[in-house]
């Protein structure tokens, strides 16, 4: 019943969306407001419709209707209700519906804005959003239907179909398979929606870019309108990536946070092109350069977003994430290819209109360094793309599957990330238009001198690896430059307006949120870099089997095994929990409780580390194995992860900075006013959202 209702709503969504596309195109061609308005209504209607579809799925999940294949696959009766609800995105079919829901919500929100000055964009924004929606909804209806059910045919065979085959009876399994225990982690419940929110938000700037290309209104209005959307998309994508890393660290029990898995890379690629876009639009706003390049970047980001959704949802690559294998692969590729080709064709058509308004003279000017930033981000993107596609390419040409692993990515992106880090420090000091080595040197010699203390401190603390000195120095240098920028801004306000330090800092950031929010993000990146350097360069590990009362050491730490408890819990787990005392240099530091939970329903164990976490380091203890009866010995694996918490702290700072930058500005900011579009920009600022 509910299945049929949900499926019906899905089909109506498809029809309404197709109508909306036709109405929008027709309305734009005929210049008919009524038709465009009708298209807008169709767009708005998709949201309640898909909400009904999603609610139907949630209803089936919560009531445990195991006749529905999707419900059977992702839930079981022992799961708590919040996990049943979030199982909406626990599998492939539900994820696609969730994607569509987010898209229609965002696109509807956009169509509700005031369009006064941008009326000509409206139909084309609707077209892009609805075409994307039709693709996903169509996929749900024809290939990944979340409502298909189990039937027992007249012949006694099992069948999976949407509608009851003739003569068949309902077949309802007693219980579902349940969500994998490893996915029952708070980080894992919000990680996919965050990534999806990021993915979907990037559709909006893309829609405006296409609208600008189609209408020929190729000034930077589309960038101003979507600036906040871009930041929001970027915020969610960043959150998704950080949460995913944290989940890996907490749950997967290998002491790491990032494995260069193809699916991680698939989520990382739109982040890279999006970050490049975020930076280079500033150059278009300030200097009128890079117009074509920005178009290329947003088109690329859109394609990568679809590609990312596809990679996580198909079996095209041997990834640990992509277990699901289905027919949707070729369709995704077809869709990406067609939309990419059409977008590029539109771009070429407007190629001459997108001429730069200015020119670049100096290699060290702000705009040139932004260009360098873009090239580096693109370089990392190319590395990732190559790594993901290399197996496919090599198989095509040599017939032999050859893959590249994490060492490939580490080797090739390492220098690029280091260059980006350095650039991140230097670029904010350079001036628009023209900078020389002399002006740059003048701006940064003080932080440079101060930063030389960092390697000295590192040496005193016992660091001996040459690369580590460079890495730590780089972090210190960039952090000091960025703080120095704050200092200069605050000092200037203090001198000029007599404001006290805090008022000056507050006003400084309030005045130019994007700039100073950006600097906070940069500081966050430095902190994250510190954490990454710590765990990548200084991680140590040991393992061993010790009897009760026995000890093992790692560095200055000693752990002693006190006891092991084994017990059952009410929610169907068998828990083996070790009690371990930690000492450092003979000083007791408390106890850790590494454990292993065995889930009876899914017959799967899950290893939960005992972690002693400080800003200096993490002591990460895993319970590996034990002798069941005599308890003659328990095996532990111990990791020492220096500085890793700076990675998470940096993540917080990073997200905070993005929020500062994305927070709505009250006062109109100073804008670049080239003669051509003076009227447009100065009048358009107030409504820019």
């Amino acid at each position, binding site marked *: 019943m509910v299945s049929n209702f949900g499926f019906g709503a899905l089909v109506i969504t498809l029809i309404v969306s197709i109508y909306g596309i036709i109405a929008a195109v027709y309305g734009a061609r005929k210049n008919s407001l009524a038709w465009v308005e009708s298209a807008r209504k169709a767009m708005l209607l998709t949201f309640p419709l898909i909400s009904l579809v999603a609610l139907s799925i949630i209803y089936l999940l919560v009531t445990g209707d195991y006749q529905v294949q999707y419900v059977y696959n992702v839930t079981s009766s022992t799961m708590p209700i919040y996990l049943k609800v979030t199982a909406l995105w626990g*599998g*492939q079919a539900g994820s696609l519906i969730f994607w569509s829901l987010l898209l229609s919500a965002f696109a509807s929100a956009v169509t509700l804005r005031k369009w006064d000055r941008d009326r000509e964009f409206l139909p084309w924004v609707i077209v892009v959003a609805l075409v994307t929606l039709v693709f996903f909804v169509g996929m749900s209806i024809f290939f990944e239907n979340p409502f298909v059910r189990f039937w027992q045919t007249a012949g006694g065979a099992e069948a999976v179909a949407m509608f009851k085959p003739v003569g068949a009876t309902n077949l309802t399994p007693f219980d579902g*398979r349940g*969500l*994998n225990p*490893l*996915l029952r982690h708070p980080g894992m419940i919000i990680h996919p929606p965050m990534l999806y929110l990021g993915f979907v938000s990037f559709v909006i700037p893309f829609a405006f870019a296409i609208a600008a290309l189609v209408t020929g209104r190729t000034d930077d209005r589309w960038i101003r309108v979507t600036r906040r959307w871009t930041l929001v998309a970027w915020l969610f994508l960043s959150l998704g990536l950080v949460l995913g890393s944290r989940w*890996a660290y907490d749950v*997967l*029990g*290998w002491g*790491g946070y990032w*494995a260069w898995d193809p699916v991680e890379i698939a989520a990382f690629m739109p982040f890279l092109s999006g970050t490049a876009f975020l930076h280079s639009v500033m150059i278009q706003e300030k200097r009128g350069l*890079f117009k*074509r390049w920005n178009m290329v970047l947003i088109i690329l980001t859109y394609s990568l977003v679809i590609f990312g959704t596809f990679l996580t949802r198909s*079996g*095209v690559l*041997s*990834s*640990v*994430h*992509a*277990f*699901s294998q289905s027919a949707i692969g070729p369709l995704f590729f077809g869709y990406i290819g067609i939309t990419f080709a059409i977008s590029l064709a539109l771009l070429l058509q407007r190629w001459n209109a997108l001429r730069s308004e200015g*020119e*670049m*003279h*100096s*290699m060290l000017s702000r705009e040139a360094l932004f*260009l*360098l930033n*873009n*090239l580096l981000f693109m*370089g990392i993107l*190319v*590395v990732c793309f*190559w790594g993901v596609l*290399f*197996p496919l390419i090599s198989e095509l040409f040599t017939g032999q*599957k*050859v*893959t*590249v*692993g994490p*060492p*490939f990515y580490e*080797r*090739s992106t390492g220098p*690029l990330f280091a260059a980006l880090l350095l650039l991140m420090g230097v670029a904010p000091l350079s001036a628009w238009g023209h900078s020389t080595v002399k002006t740059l040197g003048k701006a940064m010699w003080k932080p440079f001198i101060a930063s030389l203390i960092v390697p000295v401190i590192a040496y005193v603390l016992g660091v001996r690896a040459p690369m580590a000195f460079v890495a730590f120095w780089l972090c210190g240098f960039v952090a000091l430059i960025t703080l120095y920028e704050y200092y200069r801004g605050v000092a200037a306000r203090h001198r000029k307006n007599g404001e006290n330090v805090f008022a000056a800092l507050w006003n400084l950031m309030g005045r130019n949120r994007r700039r100073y929010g950006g600097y906070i993000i940069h500081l966050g990146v430095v902190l994250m870099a510190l954490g990454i350097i710590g765990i990548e360069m200084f991680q140590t*590990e040991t*393992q061993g089997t010790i009897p009760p009362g026995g000890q093992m050491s790692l560095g200055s730490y000693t752990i002693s095994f006190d006891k092991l408890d084994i017990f059952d819990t009410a929610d169907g787990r068998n828990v083996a929990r070790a009690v371990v005392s930690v000492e450092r240099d003979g000083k007791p530091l408390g106890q850790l409780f590494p454990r292993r939970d065995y889930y009876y329903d899914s*017959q799967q164990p*899950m*290893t939960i580390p005992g972690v002693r976490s400080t800003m200096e380091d993490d002591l990460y203890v*895993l319970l*590996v*194995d034990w002798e069941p009866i005599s308890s003659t*010995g328990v*095996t532990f*694996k111990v990791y020492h992860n220096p500085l890793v918490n700076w990675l998470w702290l940096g993540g917080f700072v990073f997200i905070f900075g993005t929020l500062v930058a994305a927070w709505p500005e009250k006062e109109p900011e100073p804008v670049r006013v080239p003669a051509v579009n003076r009227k447009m920009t100065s009048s358009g600022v107030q409504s820019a959202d």
Partner: protein
Amino acid sequence: MALNQTAAKTSPRSRVKFIIGGLLIVTAVVYLIFTSTQASAQYFLTVDELSQKSVDVGSREIRVSGAVLGDTIQYDAQNLLLTFEVAHVPGDNAEIEAQGGLAEVLHAAVVDTSRSRIKVEYHGVMPDLLRNEAQAIMTGRMNENGVFVAQELLLKCPTKYEEAVPEQAEGG
């Protein structure tokens, strides 16, 4: 593209400067990709290819995927030494699909005693997902005794879940 565009109106001298600068960066990226690929490319082989030595892999690092035989799993917790055997499964997704999906293929591989098999050795923590009919994707080298010494071990259990869970163990 960006270079052409920004250089469009720039004076010839600085245009040359920018083109050289851009080319340097592109060269650097290409160099990094090329050398890293050379240094870390791994052949992805099936158990058949590996046991028949149809491809000369020498001491190169290789990746191999196979179906885990549950009865052969042995774990020496004292020394953290894990040994098991894997049976041949097709390496091609289309082929797997044609044979009824990964779960079917893994089951068939384990049941069929005529399939070629290899012994695997792994030093480290026993992964939670290691069990009968799991798909093991291993990275490592063949030793002189014909045992595959895995450095890295990834496991998939499609029989249980539609959704994938990363299960990864990295050995030293």
